[in-house]
């Protein structure tokens, strides 16, 4: 990874930083609103895991949801914007390899995801309190999951040629996957059909494993989640890299 990668990463970070009202503050507020509303409404219900209050159960799921959505939004919307306005040409003219290109967009997406996630968690920790059962699991799942979402964002960004196609990705894939991921509930509380559906959703494993790092309990063993998250991340990165190398939609 050379100077080209460093510069492209820096540019992508500057891009969201310069509009941080929209890219950092807005998601922060919406996530905190979820937190307030759900912990108030659902707080009386028995917690999915014994010994852990619903609010404590909820926080890791919301943090992960915010991280996933923001990492995805960063790489995808930056790419679509650059394609529509035509300024992606400046990157495409440069001696930057497909690997560097992918890595730079994903790295910047991860930085944004982590910033949003960290502030949400910190705020929740101040007002609700909380525990960290295993910082290592938290970091492993945090890192891999935002990486996965960032790669998915790159894939969406190169495939979408207009803003409405991007909106379709958001509404028909990302939103359902993040909401049906067990962020608000344990999947054991779902009807069997939905439980099975959740088992095909990598974001479910991201949240379940991440939550395990905080509360020490989970719906599936963390090793299984790690396997799924890392595996789908690798498969998706490979697919994206192959598409980039083929020039699909970027170099017609």
């Amino acid at each position, binding site marked *: 990874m050379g100077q080209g990668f460093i510069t492209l990463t820096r540019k992508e970070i500057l891009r969201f930083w310069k509009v941080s009202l929209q890219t950092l503050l807005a998601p922060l507020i919406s996530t905190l609103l979820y937190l307030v509303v759900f912990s108030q409404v659902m707080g009386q219900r028995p917690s999915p895991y014994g010994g852990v209050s619903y609010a404590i159960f909820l926080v890791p799921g919301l943090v992960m949801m915010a991280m996933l959505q923001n990492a995805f939004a960063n790489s995808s919307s930056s790419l679509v914007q650059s394609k529509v306005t035509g300024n992606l040409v400046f990157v495409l003219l440069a001696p930057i390899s497909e690997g560097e290109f992918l890595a730079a967009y994903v790295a910047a997406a991860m930085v944004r995801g982590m910033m949003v996630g960290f502030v949400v968690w910190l705020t929740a920790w101040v007002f609700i309190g909380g525990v960290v059962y295993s910082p290592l699991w938290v970091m492993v799942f945090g890192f891999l999951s935002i990486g996965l979402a960032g790669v998915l964002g790159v894939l969406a960004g190169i495939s979408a040629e207009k803003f409405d196609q991007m909106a379709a990705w958001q509404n028909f894939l990302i939103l359902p996957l993040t909401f049906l991921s067990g962020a608000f509930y344990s999947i054991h509380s779902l009807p069997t059909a939905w439980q099975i559906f959740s088992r095909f959703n990598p974001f479910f494993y991201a949240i379940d494993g991440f939550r395990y790092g905080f509360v020490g309990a989970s719906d599936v063993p963390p090793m299984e989640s790690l396997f799924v998250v890392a595996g789908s991340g690798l498969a998706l990165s490979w697919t994206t890299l192959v598409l980039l190398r083929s020039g699909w939609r970027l*170099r017609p």
Partner: protein
Amino acid sequence: MSESLPAIEIKGAQKNFSGLQALKGIDLQVETGEFFALLGPNGAGKTTLINMLAGLVRPDSGVLRVMGHDVIRDYRAARRALGVVPQELVFDPFFSVRETLRLQSGYFGLARNDDWIDEVLDNLQLMSKAEVNMRALSGGMKRRVLIAQALVHRPPVIVLDEPTAGVDVELRQTLWKFIRRLNTEGHTILLTTHYLEEAEALCRRVAVLRQGQVVTCDSLEGLLRSCNAPTLEAAFVGLLQQGVD
């Protein structure tokens, strides 16, 4: 680098866009140090050919080289050797002029490039706009930045795709002075323009493209002689009429 190495080498370049044959087998060679004009009516395929050289469009078949580097197999070296001013007026609204040029330098592996950036800004009379956001620039100013961006990495081969469209007289003169200087310093220049007096004044060799084919490729004098025309414009009009069945 040997004297005889061509700056641009294109052999049998073909490109179809969903049925439309944009380029029908182009052979073209531009020698190092030349000031070369690529002319042709709208839709002839000039931009497509340039985009292929730059790696922005993939050829269906054919070989393209910049300073001897294959634009696909050896794309890093080929792109480092090439500076392209795109035809479309594109810019990144998030950044100022100087930020834009620093980023472009970084993409080309240059972490510290401020001396050269200042020189380019100065030569394109952009110094007073250096800290202005791209969004706030007029069209002509944006065009100047596009030109500056193509030059940040001091490419030996410079391709200008209609650089003077929508540009005032003053910039045209300063731009050509600067580009001429780069040419005398050894940079190879490939220019497309619809202002034929401009091409006539600047270029020593000319290729004319029509419907994806090279109609002629000759020295300026040779072209005027063979067309028996007093000006490039007269020769150009004659050539295009000849071709019409």
